[in-house]
């Protein structure tokens, strides 16, 4: 029997999840209330929902609330966090899209209870395609770097991207740090060599 704790704030979602899971006789929803400490610590898998913005807060509250080291956590993401974020939250071992089917949800709970990691393919492979396309840079930094390669000054980059010159300076300095360079020429060279600027 896999004991599952539903740690979601919306009563409707909680009721829905309980209903979905009831079809699997090997899964037992132990409690869906956050107030009863004794039951929570016995859960094998905690199901929680979180948006990207509240992810860290949610994860922190979970870590505080469920102190049993064996409880794996399945996260229902509304917009999906990436694998890097997932790895930072030590106890989140599974991520499922919010529109997952009952079969996917029960399969994920079974997998997590066996100590496996669960996630949709596009999420797990993001870690491979991301760095290849942009290197260590964010999307905005990549845009700034591409404009640096055409020789634009900060002010002109600001106009081109519709952001302030101050923000451009911030991005440029961040690019320098990430690429370990000290000037624009080196930044562009590194960007081209690394294959992060499209030609």
């Amino acid at each position, binding site marked *: 029997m896999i004991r599952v704790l539903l740690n979601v704030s919306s009563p409707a979602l909680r009721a829905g999840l309980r209903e979905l899971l009831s079809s699997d006789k090997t899964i037992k929803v132990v409690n869906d209330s956050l107030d009863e400490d004794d039951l929570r610590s016995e859960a094998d898998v905690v199901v929680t929902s979180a948006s990207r913005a509240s992810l860290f807060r949610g994860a922190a509250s979970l870590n505080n609330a469920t102190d049993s080291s064996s409880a794996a956590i399945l996260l229902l993401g509304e917009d999906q966090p990436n694998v890097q974020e997932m790895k930072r939250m030590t106890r989140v071992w599974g991520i499922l899209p919010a529109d997952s089917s009952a079969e996917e949800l029960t399969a994920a709970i079974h997998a997590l209870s066996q100590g496996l990691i669960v996630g949709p393919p596009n999420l797990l492979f993001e870690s491979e395609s991301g760095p290849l396309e942009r290197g260590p840079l964010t999307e905005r930094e990549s845009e700034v770097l591409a404009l640096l390669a*055409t020789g634009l*000054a900060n002010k002109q980059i600001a106009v081109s991207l519709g952001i302030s010159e101050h923000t451009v300076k911030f991005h440029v300095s961040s690019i320098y740090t990430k690429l370990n360079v000290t000037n624009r020429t080196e930044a562009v060279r590194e960007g081209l060599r690394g294959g992060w600027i*499209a030609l």
Partner: protein
Amino acid sequence: MSNPLTDFSNILTSAAEKGGASTVLVDARKRYPASGIAYAADLVLTADHVITREDGDIKVGLPDGKSLKASLAGRDPGSDLAVLRLAEKALTPAQTADDVKVGQLVLAVGRPSDAGIQASWGIVTAIAGPARTHRGGMLEKYIKTETTPYPGFSGGPLLNTEGEVLGLNTSGLSHHSSALTIPVSVAWRVADELAKHGSVKRGYLGVRTQTVEIPEAARNALKRDQKGGLLVLWLEENGPAQKGGLFVGDTIAAIAGTSVSDPDDLFAALTSGTVGKPIAVEVLRGGKPETVNVTVGERK
């Protein structure tokens, strides 16, 4: 008997005078003005970095002391060039010369004040490029000289001893205010585009690449001793390269017959002249050379 030193000096003064007749004052920034070259009767070619004031507040000082309002016709920060337009045809267009050699005697001329032209002389120390400028852009070719870049010389001409323009001097492309000269072959082409379109087009393939070593067997297949090529890592969906039939995993070895072994080579090859035209891209595919025709797009 004539004094050869006086003759020599006279040659320099008449060259400065002739070039100076097509050198104007460009007042478009704070503190001191800079210089410009009469590109056409109503067009001034100058350095992009000396224009910091808004359009509508730019003035051009003519050799006869008159000051005219000018508008910005176009600018290209990558090559540090800009073209200003006058309302009337008041200029004497500069005469140009294409042949420049290392060791050649040259004059750098500027008109940074109403007091008249200023000059500095020296020899051409190097002709180089393509190179990345400290602004991050790419310069196909540049001239280094021994001339002294006095304040306000940016935008002014480098002259030969005939008083013909060899290029445009600027301190905006290198560090520590050392100057370099953009040769006429590059500057006049950019000026033409700026006057016509207001900006300079750049070619675009829609690829991201990394430099890789070409193995010996493939080098033999290429029939030349080219050590590096550009491995295609990414193709823009429906981009020029993908439409032309390039694949991820191809190694680009040459563009339009010129070998490329560094991304900068590719960047330099994609000049404005290539936009919209088919270009032969030689790739190594499975170790064998193949040529793919790609219609070059425009970098936005």
